[in-house]
């Protein structure tokens, strides 16, 4: 400690550089997005025009919505593999019930269905203390099975497109309601989780469950809430997609799951918990969509897209772990001694 004080000035400098690095790290995803966007604008034919930008925004909405709850689960240091089947559930329920209940009530039911699955996940994780990976892997199979069982494996649809058209038609020339809804929900929960006393609890639970409990937080409740939120937003996202195409297939969410996980990680949320935020997850989803869309404009096939997104994910994971690896090496170095070394070198 003495050392720290003696060289406190040197150490402050050290602190500052660290801060800058952290800041850079924090804005990483924005930079990746910028780089890709610019590259695409330069090289990809009919990429940069209003219509396509709208496509990109629409393409983002489903996974961005799903990522909301999933990110919170990750912040709590847990994993939710059931998001895929949950979003399918939402979609199937909303379309399945629309003829009898009408749009809004069936939307409510759909979302509640998602929340229920989430609640079950949360309960099993928090109370029965089963690893979330296992719980959600189980519920994933169960829910998917139920969907097939009830729908007999067939898609559902309604031939009324008024709502669908409204959801898809851009307002203010750029933002379709579906996108607006998604983004606003993202923003609401982003603020709720990051900037409110209540929301900060998720970070504390994820950072150290014991501490959170000792600080008087109801950790189990937080966990359950996180999973409920995940189930809810997943179902909502699915439902919105279904409403915007007036139909739903029982295999809707299969490939979303992995994309959302990847995006959340790329967005800077760590599996360890206690870090990350919803907005950056959305930006990461956006980044992936831009990448897909741009590559498609370049005439690249699907294979190139997963290849590229895989590379981005790999790059991020590598970068992060390498950074930590380097940090470990120099952690606890004494500025005083380092200063001497520098002098010696001169």
């Amino acid at each position, binding site marked *: *400690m*003495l*050392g*720290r*004080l*003696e060289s*406190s000035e040197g150490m402050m400098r050290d*602190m500052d550089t*660290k*801060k800058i690095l952290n800041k850079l790290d924090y804005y990483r995803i924005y930079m990746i997005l910028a780089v890709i966007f610019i590259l695409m604008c330069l090289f990809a034919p009919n990429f940069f025009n209003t219509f396509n930008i709208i496509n990109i925004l629409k393409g983002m909405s489903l996974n961005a919505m799903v990522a909301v709850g999933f990110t919170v689960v990750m912040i709590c240091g847990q994993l939710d593999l059931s998001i895929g089947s949950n979003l399918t559930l939402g979609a199937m329920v909303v379309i399945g019930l629309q003829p009898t209940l009408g749009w809004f009530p069936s939307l409510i039911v759909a979302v509640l269905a998602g929340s229920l699955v989430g609640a079950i996940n949360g309960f099993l994780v928090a109370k029965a203390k089963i690893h979330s990976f296992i719980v959600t892997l189980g519920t994933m199979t169960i829910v998917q099975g139920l969907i097939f069982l009830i729908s007999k494996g067939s898609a559902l649809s309604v031939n009324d497109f008024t709502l669908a058209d409204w959801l898809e038609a851009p307002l203010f020339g750029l933002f379709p309601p579906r996108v607006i809804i998604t983004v606003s929900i993202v923003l609401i929960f982003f603020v709720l989780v990051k*900037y*409110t*006393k*209540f929301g*900060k609890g998720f*970070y*504390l639970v*994820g*950072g*150290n469950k*014991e*501490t*959170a*409990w*000792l*600080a*008087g*937080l109801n950790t189990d409740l937080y966990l359950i809430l996180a999973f409920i939120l995940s189930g809810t937003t997943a179902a909502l996202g699915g439902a919105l997609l279904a409403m915007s195409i007036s139909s739903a297939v029982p295999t809707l969410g299969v490939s979303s799951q992995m994309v959302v996980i990847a995006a959340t990680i790329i967005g800077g949320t*760590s599996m*360890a*918990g*206690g*870090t990350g935020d919803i907005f950056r997850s959305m930006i990461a989803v956006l980044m992936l969509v831009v990448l897909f869309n741009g590559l498609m404009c370049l005439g690249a096939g699907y294979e190139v897209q997963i290849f590229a997104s895989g590379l981005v994910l790999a790059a991020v994971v590598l970068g992060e772990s390498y950074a930590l690896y380097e940090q470990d090496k*120099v952690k*606890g*170095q*004494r500025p*005083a*001694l*380092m200063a*001497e*070394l520098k002098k010696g070198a001169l």
Partner: protein
Amino acid sequence: MNEVFSLDMKGVSKQFPGTLAVDNVDFQVKAGEVHALLGENGAGKSTLMKMIAGAFSDYTGQICVLGENVELCSPSAAKAKGVGMVYQELSLAMPLTIAENVLAGRLPTKGKIFIDKKAMREQTIECLKRVGLGHLDPFSCIKEISQQEAQLVEIAKTLGNNPNILVMDEPTSSLSREEVKLLFGIIEKLKKQGLAIIYISHHLPELFEIADRVTIMRDGKKIGTYNIDEVTTKSLVEMMVGRPIDDKPIKVKNQVLGEEKLRIENLTRNGFFHDVSFNVRANEVLGIGGLSGAGRSELARGIVGADAIDSGKIYIKGKEVRIKNMSQALEHGVAYLTENRKEEGLALRITIGENILAPLLKKHTKNGIYSAKSGASEVLEVMKELKVYPPDPTVTVGNLSGGNQQKVLLGKWVATKPQILILDEPTRGVDVGAKMVIHDTIRRLASEGNAVILISSDLPELVALSDRVKIMKEGRFIGELIKEDLSEETILLAANGEGDKLSEDIYAS
């Protein structure tokens, strides 16, 4: 007269499945006193404290805080009643910032909902100042600060709740002498403010510095409460272990030192320790004193190759060696007992036997096949010698008491029959019984012609065991004390050769 106690527990008990951890205990603490709570690990004192902190909802008996009968059935309830607890194990969320930790559960808000960042900064800094960490940035992560700082942050966090009963469980276990002094300064201030402080420590000398009264527990029962001047270290220890014992570790003169086992020349790891040189000989215990964070553990890690060194030479029995990793160190007969048992010392989820045999995998692997049987006798032998309880190698280490865990940890390295044994805080936070066993073992190892390097912040321990003490400071050796003039005072003086800016800084703030 019946004075109102800050805390008054009457006939409280806590039943764990299969055992009565706290058995009908009465316990009173006055306002403005430091009340030490003593007992070996497993005596039930931590359970008692957890009870006060509201960790259990199913205790029996009556608890009064400031005369008012209360139900401390949840941490929040306890906090509301003004009970603050500093836990022995750090209970901080690593990925979060200092501020978020210090203000956990009571973040300042604008309009009840949104977090007030400015207020956060101010309140945090204010809390940190109280423990002399005013210079830390409230928004830097816990990961980024040292363990000592973290320990103090922990205390700052508790003080932040302005408790009127403060429970401290081994608060000094990872603090250097300096920081302990500073902490005592804080405690004194709090006393004056009329707080009731319950202080748990295995470090008896501390108690005589700080405590007013002391209560001793054994096997979940209360043995008695005394004013500090009524008791001596000896009597306390006897009450704790429940049998008469010889006085605190006496210096036994080791026989004449043997040949040189280990010589270090200008060992340097840039930024951690610079041109360190020393040698240890057979039958010798070389103490390395100094403030924690002086680079002692880093030095040890450098020697055993856990971290790469940048320059310098290592000679074992006069032969120069390059040690790139722990396994090479073991091959050269160098063992290193790490300071933090739970992270780097023992795998808590596997059995005693497996832990002890961990470094011996190679030895017990005959033409590709590993047999734990061939190691069984060794394990039992070690466990017997170190009096590990329970004496059953199939017990999961996580289920042992701290003291026994530490014994197993030492046993793990003793079993490797090292010629050079580096011990880093071998008795941190263990009870008196375990401590005695460990000290005896260290002496025996030395007397059997091995070289022991003892890194310790426990001055009596250093004095009692070492033949020589090197003083380390700021990653350098700044002095050596030979047996004749070894005493806690001399070590302290040497360690603080340049006066303590630290405490000045504190008292200034």
